[in-house]
């Protein structure tokens, strides 16, 4: 497969997954507000904070009101990680590889992009929740169409790796939102308000029902964090994402599991196996936020190694 093509398939999938996660991101906060007691202070700044783009936001919008934050993360075409920018980038990448992906994938992505573009044009939206649900479903539909119509060969595996790494990264950030929201008042830990927030968070990762089924029903911060970080069967948990991404990587290269033949395999394999033997208690002891931060850094590093190994093939011959 052409390096340029593999690169485009990779980014196309990352961007679609990113758009979905931004939607989840904003939606969790909307849900928190609905569930919160009257008079609770709205907190929108953490959403921007965990994206790492707070300075940019401050410069462009100033105050972190609901309206500003939602606009920034959803429809701001000058912000490269907004939903609309992600979809535009995904579509541009898809346009560059239309001959490789299936017709259905292209049509679904094109429809997805047009839906968001149309929503951006008819603002203000009366029902944000409905819009974000639509974004999430369109992203699922894209993944499903891809799964069902594209040969599960090299290109498909690059797409999988991209989607899974992006998802793992965003799961760390969604967990982090909770951390930042709690920061101002540590005294709320363990209160009914706290539980509502954890429920909202589980829902935003589509994990509520799955969590209930496997974690002795009770909602405790530790168990929720464990579920979203270390569960080996839930498709949005970080460990699951890393395991599957590693599997795809090895299917591309043919390197046997448990060994590595290039820097990308080494970085990812190391990270995955580290989580294999970690416990939630150790994570909490070392500090959840610090742990998540470090994960993000290592996953970025893995992304870089993938780029160097497969996409930036040296040109001189």
């Amino acid at each position, binding site marked *: 497969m052409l390096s340029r093509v593999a690169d485009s398939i990779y980014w196309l999938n990352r961007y679609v997954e990113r758009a979905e996660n931004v939607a989840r991101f904003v939606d969790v906060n909307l849900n928190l507000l609905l569930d919160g007691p009257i008079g609770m202070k709205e907190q929108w700044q953490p959403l921007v904070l965990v994206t790492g783009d707070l300075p940019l936001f401050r410069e462009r919008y100033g105050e972190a009101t609901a309206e500003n934050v939602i606009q920034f993360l959803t429809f701001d075409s000058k912000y490269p990680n907004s939903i609309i920018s992600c979809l535009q980038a995904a579509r541009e990448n898809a346009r560059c590889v*239309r001959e*490789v992906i299936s017709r259905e994938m292209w049509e679904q992505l094109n429809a997805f992009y047009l839906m968001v573009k149309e929503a951006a044009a008819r603002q203000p939206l009366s029902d944000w929740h409905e819009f974000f649900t639509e974004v999430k479903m369109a992203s699922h539909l894209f993944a499903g169409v891809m799964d069902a119509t594209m040969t599960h060969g090299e290109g498909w595996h690059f797409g999988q790796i991209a989607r899974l790494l992006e998802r793992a990264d965003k799961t760390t950030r969604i967990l982090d939102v909770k951390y930042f929201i709690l920061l101002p008042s540590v005294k709320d830990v363990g209160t009914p308000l706290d539980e509502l927030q954890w429920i909202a968070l589980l829902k935003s990762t589509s994990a509520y029902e799955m969590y209930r089924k496997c974690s002795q029903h009770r909602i405790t911060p530790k168990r929720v964090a464990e579920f979203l970080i270390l569960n080996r069967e839930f498709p949005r948990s970080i460990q699951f994402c890393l395991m599957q991404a590693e599997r795809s990587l090895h299917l591309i290269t043919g390197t046997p599991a448990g060994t590595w033949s290039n820097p990308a395999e080494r970085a990812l394999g190391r990270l995955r196996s580290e989580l294999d033997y970690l416990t939630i208690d150790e994570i909490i002891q070392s500090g959840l936020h610090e742990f998540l931060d470090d994960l993000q850094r290592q996953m970025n590093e893995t992304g870089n190694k993938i780029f160097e190994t497969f996409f930036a*093939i040296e040109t001189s011959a």
Partner: protein
Amino acid sequence: MRFDEYDPGDFYDELFAAKGQPRPEAAVLVKRIHSLAPGELQQRQQSAQSALFKQGVTFSVYGDAEGTERILPFDIIPRIVSAQEWTRLEEGLKQRIYALNVFLADIYQDQKILKDGVIPAELIYSATGFLKPCLDLQPPVGIWCHITGTDLIRDRDGQWYVLEDNLRCPSGVSYVLENRRVMKSTFPRVFSAMEIQPVEKYPSHLLETLLNLTPPNLLDPTVVVLTPGVYNSAYFEHSLLAQQMGVELVEGRDLVVADGYLQMRTTKGLQRVDVVYRRIDDDFIDPLTFRADSMLGVPGLMEVYRAGRVAIANALGTGVADDKVIYAYMPEIIRYYLGEDPIIPNVPTYLCWEQQQQEHVLANLEELVVKAANESGGYGMLIGPKATTEQRHEFSQRIQANPRNYIAQPTLCLSRTPTIVNDRFEGCHVDLRPYILYGKEIYVNPGGLTRVALKKGSLVVNSSQGGGSKDTWVLSHASDQLQGASVQSQIQSLRF
């Protein structure tokens, strides 16, 4: 919407012999359209257009900051060609493409036609499409032009003419394929009742044509489509053809010359390329041989090509044969090489390069169409009868300053066909671009792109000048007989 008011007027109409009188081959379609509920035709027109947009069947518009994509405006009233008529066109096109190939081989090899004085040598040497680096080149299996799009028009009396040949990178065939897809869902029943010749085999024939260029002992040849990239106006087409053939779509930056071969950069290292279907103009394909400033091509490609280690379709240098001045010699070229008369005539053409003809052109500018020898897309043209005195004056000067670069033709009265314009049928002028492939044998895709001038009265059908397109239905022979013999019973037996 009905055709009752539609009047072909003093034009050759593709669907109507006279007011209220559809041609036999169009009768079933007209009947069907009359049976539709009010507003339904417009609705189908809209859904056809939106299907094309959703499927991204678009072209990029140059010079637009937003990189806007548009669909080629599409009209759902097809143009219909009878099998009998098509057979004749097909023969004519095969004859022409064969002669053009012999001509190209001769021009770059022995130049017999120049030595025999049929064409003045200086006209060849001054043609911008003539490439000296291609002299003595021996393209695989001796074919130079593998893919041709030849523009045909019809005059007032129904006579077909060749308007021009496109032998470099003719585009538009993707619209033939996509328009057909949409039309099948727009008029499914009429479509199946009429026995229309399929166009869908084009990608298979194209792939065979390209594979025909590989050495017979090569087990698993790699074919690629070379595109200038996603910002090229025909990018959609490049991508569709690569997809439909199942081959890689590459850009110049994906390719490199290494170890004496053309190779592409893959996730597993370099991989050899054997055949390139290039959609990049000659000038841009190798900065070491041609334009040094080109970022689109591959440095060193020409050397690999000359060594016979990669095949290129169309061969480099084919542009010399679609120079409009050379076009004027086509009847002589066919006679010279084949000893036959052309089956489809040229539009009568004056060469400004010849003193007498130039005088005639300058004296009759208000009746003639003047074209620059090397422009396409409707640029560099003067339509005499519609031009201002000032424009005619300007062209008169241009012609005298550079006579080699201009030809003139009488303004033909292009045929028309009913087209939906604002909730009514208007007769709009059309041309036809069939696509011809030269592999083991010559294959003409049945039909081709019908381009339609959507501006009222306009004769310019190019997409860059506000033209649109239609599906072209070439009937099968069985269907011809059916349509001719018992149109009425056919209509009655068709359950709408």
